[in-house]
């Protein structure tokens, strides 16, 4: 697997998917990270000012912790995580064993609607990812 280097073309395709499926929907910021805490790509609505590097490190740690907890209760994984706040929410979803999609969004978007779009985005991203790694 060619993990570690992503081509410019691949990244542009992924960025387009993120913009079309999530940013247009009203999501503040979307990040794809790997499980080591590296940022693969980050897209935002132009207004949000998150420290995405720290965020990626913490998110990878968070996901790894939850994954270890899943194993303790006999689950293969918890593939979806959601943190709810008063003004903003964070949704984590696994793309594959190495990649994680994180969406940060406000209270005007419903979780169900976001999840539907996240699922579609992930399917499209997987196609882009696998096409160039096969």
């Amino acid at each position, binding site marked *: 697997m060619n*993990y*570690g*280097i*992503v*081509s*410019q073309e691949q*990244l*542009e395709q992924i960025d387009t998917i993120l913009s079309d499926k999530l940013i247009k929907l009203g999501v503040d910021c979307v990040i794809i990270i*790997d*499980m*080591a*805490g*590296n*940022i*693969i*790509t980050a897209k935002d609505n132009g207004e949000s000012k998150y*420290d995405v*590097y*720290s965020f990626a*490190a*913490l998110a*990878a*740690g968070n996901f*790894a*912790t939850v994954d*270890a907890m899943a194993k303790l209760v006999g689950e293969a994984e918890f593939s979806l995580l959601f943190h709810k706040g008063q003004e903003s929410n964070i949704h984590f979803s696994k793309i594959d064993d190495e990649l994680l999609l994180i969406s940060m969004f406000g209270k005007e978007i419903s979780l169900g609607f976001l999840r539907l779009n996240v699922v579609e985005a992930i399917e499209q991203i997987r196609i882009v990812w696998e096409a160039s790694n096969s």
Partner: protein
Amino acid sequence: MSFINLKDKVVQVKIVYYGPGRCGKTTNLEYVNRKFRDQIQSEMVSLKTHGDRTLFFDFLPFDMGKIKGYDIKIQLYTVPGQVKYNATRKLVLKGVDGVVFVADAMEKQREKNIRSLNQLHENLQAYKESIFKIPLVIQYNKVDLKDHGVPILPTELLRKDLNSRLKVPDLEASAITGYNVAATLKKIISSTVVSIQKKLL
């Protein structure tokens, strides 16, 4: 594994400070955070217990400038040193590109250093990495304690204990005063960047 973004021309490099409990890993990062404030855009993240011990990790992103047109982003991490936290130590090591092993020069810590280094070896194996191959720098920390009458191990002995087989760059340091903290960082960054370049060629 470092992540290379060809579109934005960014290379992300993960360096982990590893070592026994209370050896000064967090202190190393805190010094870097103060000393190189201008190159650091974000705040240092520390996940610690009420007793100020590292619970999960500390994280400090650091811009190193450009090499061949690529922005090098160094990500410094520490692991929790306490024996019981090996599961989290292992998690932090995922995708590591370079390791600084911080040894505690205090006499009474001799055995703990050796145990911690052995565990680093095992933990790296779990990710199919080898302690003999990964860029590694050993730092003998707390040498300043000698001046305060605290018995410390001679560097030759520390070297024999920890570095006789590895034969990696090693230096004495005092994280609290900043002595050789930047030198350690420079050493590990250069070994790591060279090793990434080799992998790519």
